[in-house]
């Protein structure tokens, strides 16, 4: 259900794998890619570092929280680590549910928490120089829309 890997993934195959159940009416996928531009120039590649002992657990917690908020029928998360060239796939989240709003919301929720809670760090290479990506305030504030009261 959750994979952290250096290998690439096949989005279509992962989506198909979640469509097996007859009561599924909606499948939403999110694919994150290495963009070729950063504020300081053209990005040729990135390097993704993670905290192996914690990353899997952190993603499991995020997925459990999503499952407790929405009636999901399937969840798949793949996050790559290591060197990735511009245009390569970084992350995949696929969620299936009976209804579309649950699937959309859960996929958005998982990505928002993954971005600001899961221990991954991105270094961008511009002209052969590595720069650690700074966290965006917008990633943290994106969590506000999921606060319940």
């Amino acid at each position: 259900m959750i994979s952290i890997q250096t290998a690439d993934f096949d989005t279509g195959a992962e989506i198909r794998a979640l469509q097996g159940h007859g009561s599924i009416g909606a499948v939403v996928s999110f694919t994150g890619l290495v963009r070729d531009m950063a504020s300081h120039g053209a990005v040729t590649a990135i390097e993704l570092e993670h905290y192996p002992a914690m990353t899997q657990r952190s993603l499991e917690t995020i997925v459990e929280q999503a499952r407790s908020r929405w009636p999901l029928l399937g969840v798949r998360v793949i996050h790559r680590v290591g060197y990735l060239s511009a245009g390569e796939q970084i992350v995949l989240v696929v969620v299936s549910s009976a209804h579309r709003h649950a699937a959309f919301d859960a996929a958005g929720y998982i990505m928002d928490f993954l971005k600001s809670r899961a221990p991954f760090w991105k270094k961008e290479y511009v002209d052969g120089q590595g720069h650690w990506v700074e966290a965006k305030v917008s990633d943290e504030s994106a969590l506000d829309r999921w606060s319940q009261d």
Partner: protein
Amino acid sequence: MIKLCFFARFREKLGTAEESMTLEGPMTVTALMSLLAGRGGAWQEVFDCPRGIMVAINQEMAALDSTIHDGDEVALFPPVTGG
């Protein structure tokens, strides 16, 4: 003994990914950071100000006033930027 882990910019700046440290007794994360900053040089630069530092104790996100106990794994890192 506790295990300290550093990641990303911190790991590079400190020139080390992890170390073991003897703990006199339970202490807060803030106290640990002061202790590390006291080493001077890159350590001071990284841990002088707790702003922009995230901490996990035993692979769970923790706070600046969380208590560290003997045997814990304490990870210190900059805000995450995955996905």
